[in-house]
């Protein structure tokens, strides 16, 4: 390599040039450094980004792992509750030794009644009341308190007892309203009922007063059945093997209660036949209808004035047509529902009457009929309103009965009822009812404030 010798003067001359050049070089260096720095910066940014990405990825992986772990734990979670096997879990029957006691329910029923007319003077011309018919006591009174006991006797029989405590003219009176047994294991869709029970004719006849939609019974049942006909008897019911509901039944009773009397035919004094049908229309509507006959033999049957009664010997034939239509949106009765209910009763009584004060009896063949129609609307949970119209009519019994209690005196018995009730729960109900009663000779306005409370066993939701 050849060394270059530069003369001193040349150096002096070159110095400024070199200096200039040097400065130029320094400028160039700054630019380079800047560039390098920028490059580095860019590089680091990419690396940081890379690192960040890796961190994210790692975090995601960890989360995934945790999730998988959780899932595995979930898989290990029991798919059956611990300790459950498929024998009945018997934690409800070991409570006490009293589990065999019958289900017991008590219905407390009382009212405050106000009548414009004197209820003692109330009577419906032509329809001398029998049985428990007549207006309930005015003022405060506990009407009818019921004690209900029910249980399966064994796998063949179910038993039910209803005892009622009533106040009549200041005296308390305990009566056995119902005491019957139903069979549970009869073949061919039949059931026998025997003991004392309300006849299954019509719709209202076997309904207890606490299930009524009004505080009082409809006029035709009051007039013809003595509120309702119950007696000692035996009943057979058969369900037809059809997809819709068709029930046919027959009953034989002792015949000691109104409209029967006197235990005729050696204590087989009343008979009945009935057929009930029913079904649904869509989910929101359901209906039932029925036709019944009750033939009651009356021997020395007293009716009308208690001290000086009419006495009847003969037959009372009663035919009943009933129809019930219920509507509830989707069949869910809890919120809103509407019930229309109507019945028509025809009665023929033929035989002889011994009129008060008479010594010889007078033969009679009297036709009469009665009806009611009612509409009950529950517009929101707990609240219901209802309207009922009921009436009676009587064919002329003949001149021989003119002026007696069997003479209608040209009266057309008719009554209008309006009620509101509130049920705080399924077990309590408070009802306010107003009656415009034109069944007697003098029109009457009647107010009833009633309570119905049920304690003990859960009541049945009858149709």
């Amino acid at each position, binding site marked *: 390599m050849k060394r270059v010798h530069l003369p001193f003067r040349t150096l002096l001359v070159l110095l400024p040039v070199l200096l200039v050049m040097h400065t130029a070089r320094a400028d160039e260096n700054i630019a380079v450094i800047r560039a390098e720095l920028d490059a580095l910066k860019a590089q680091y940014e990419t690396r940081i980004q890379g690192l960040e990405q890796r961190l994210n990825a790692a975090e995601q992986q960890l989360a995934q792992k945790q999730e998988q772990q959780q*899932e595995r734990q*979930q*898989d290990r*979670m*029991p*798919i*059956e*509750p611990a*300790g*459950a*096997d*498929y*024998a*009945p*879990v018997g*934690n*409800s029957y070991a409570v006490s030794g009293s589990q065999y006691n019958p289900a017991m329910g008590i219905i407390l029923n009382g009212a405050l009644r106000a009548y414009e007319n004197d209820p003692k003077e109330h009577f419906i011309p032509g329809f001398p009341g029998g049985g428990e018919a007549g207006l309930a006591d005015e003022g405060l009174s506990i009407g009818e308190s019921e004690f209900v006991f029910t249980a*399966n006797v064994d*796998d063949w029989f*179910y038993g039910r007892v209803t005892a009622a405590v009533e106040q009549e003219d200041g005296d308390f009176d305990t009566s056995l309203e119902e005491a019957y047994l139903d069979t*549970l*294991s*009869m073949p061919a*869709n039949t*059931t026998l009922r025997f003991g004392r029970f309300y006849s299954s004719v019509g719709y209202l006849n076997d309904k207890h007063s606490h299930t009524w939609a009004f505080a009082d019974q409809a006029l035709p049942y009051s007039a013809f059945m003595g509120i309702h006909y119950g007696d000692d008897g035996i009943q057979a019911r058969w*369900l037809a*093997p*059809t*997809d*819709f*509901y*068709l*029930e046919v039944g027959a009953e034989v009773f002792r015949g000691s209660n109104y409209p029967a009397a006197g235990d005729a035919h050696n204590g087989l004094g009343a008979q009945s036949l009935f057929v*009930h*049908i*029913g*079904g*649904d229309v869509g*989910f929101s509507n*359901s*209906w*039932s209808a029925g036709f019944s006959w009750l033939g009651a033999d009356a021997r020395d049957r007293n009716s009308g004035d208690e001290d000086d009664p009419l006495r009847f010997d003969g037959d009372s034939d009663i035919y009943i047509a009933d129809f019930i239509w*219920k509507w509830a949106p*989707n*069949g*869910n*009765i*809890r*919120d809103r529902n509407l019930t229309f209910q109507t019945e028509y009763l025809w009665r023929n009584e033929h035989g002889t009457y011994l009129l008060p004060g008479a010594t010889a009896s007078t033969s009679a063949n009297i036709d009469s009929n009665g009806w009611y129609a009612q509409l009950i609307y529950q517009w929101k*949970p707990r609240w219901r309103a209802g309207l009922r119209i009921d009436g009676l009519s009587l064919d002329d019994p003949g001149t021989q009965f003119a002026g007696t209690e069997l003479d209608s005196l040209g009266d057309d018995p008719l009554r209008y009822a309006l009620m509101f009730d509130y049920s705080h*729960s*399924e*077990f309590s109900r408070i009802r306010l009812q107003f009656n415009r009663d034109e069944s007697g000779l003098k029109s009457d306005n009647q107010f009833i404030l009633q309570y119905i409370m049920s*304690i003990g066993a*859960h*009541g*049945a*939701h*009858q*149709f």
Partner: protein
Amino acid sequence: MYYRIIAKIGLTISLIVASGAQAAVQVFACEPEWAALAGEIGGDNIVATSATNALQDPHYIQARPSLIARIRKADLLICSGSDLEAGWLPLLLRKGNNPKIQPGKPGYLMASQYVNRLEIPTVLDRAQGDLHAQGNPHIQTDPRNLTIVARVIAQRLQQIDVANAASYQQGLHAFEVKWSKAVAKWQRQAASLRGKKVVLHHKSWVYLNYWLGLVEVATLESKPGVPPSAAHLNELLVQLQATPAALIIRTPYQNARPSDWLSKRTGIPNTALPFTVGGSADANDLYSLFDVTIRILLDKMGPNNE
């Protein structure tokens, strides 16, 4: 000519008799979930119908004539039990004139008797509402309970219809395999719901809560069976404004107004869950019932909703 007609009639009669002998087992379920569950196991060997639909409150049913006609021909009765049907089933049992489904017979099956029941009251007093002495009857909202009931149903079907016993065993096995997979899937899906606070209209969902770990903080009914009152809703409003919950839940048959009211004032979302098969348009079998239930719960209060 006559011979042919007589032969035809004879053949028809014998066919009717033969088909009668092989008639399907009639299952009368009180609620839709039990009809669906019986169908899973019994398949074509049974005809299962439900006395109630998903839009009816099973507490408040009347013993209608149509139900009497249906219970008359039942071979197997499947109900939730624990007094859920106390108002109407005893009446149907007595009016249906059917000895096969009376208590104690193989045809009488009360599903809740076979699972661990929650909320068995220590004190029975109607001042506390309409309590069920045997515990909360709404057991179908925990799918694990259905596994247990399925086994009981299979056992009963085998007793009632011995000829098809093997088929019921197969049906049960197939159901158990498929169902346990589904239950595991729902549990995975709903894992994030654990510990969420919910408000219930009625105590219809305690088994769902127990299953998924949801926490009930209040009910719209002040006492079981007592409709939500304005006073109680106002109390709840104060409570929920102080300590909010994630969701207000009701069944399709419960009135939406109380939960809407509370929802509007608290900002807490409210929803109806299907509760049983048919409770929503897309909940048309037991699998979709829980698919829909979990989906709604996740939609309303899942992790993406916070």
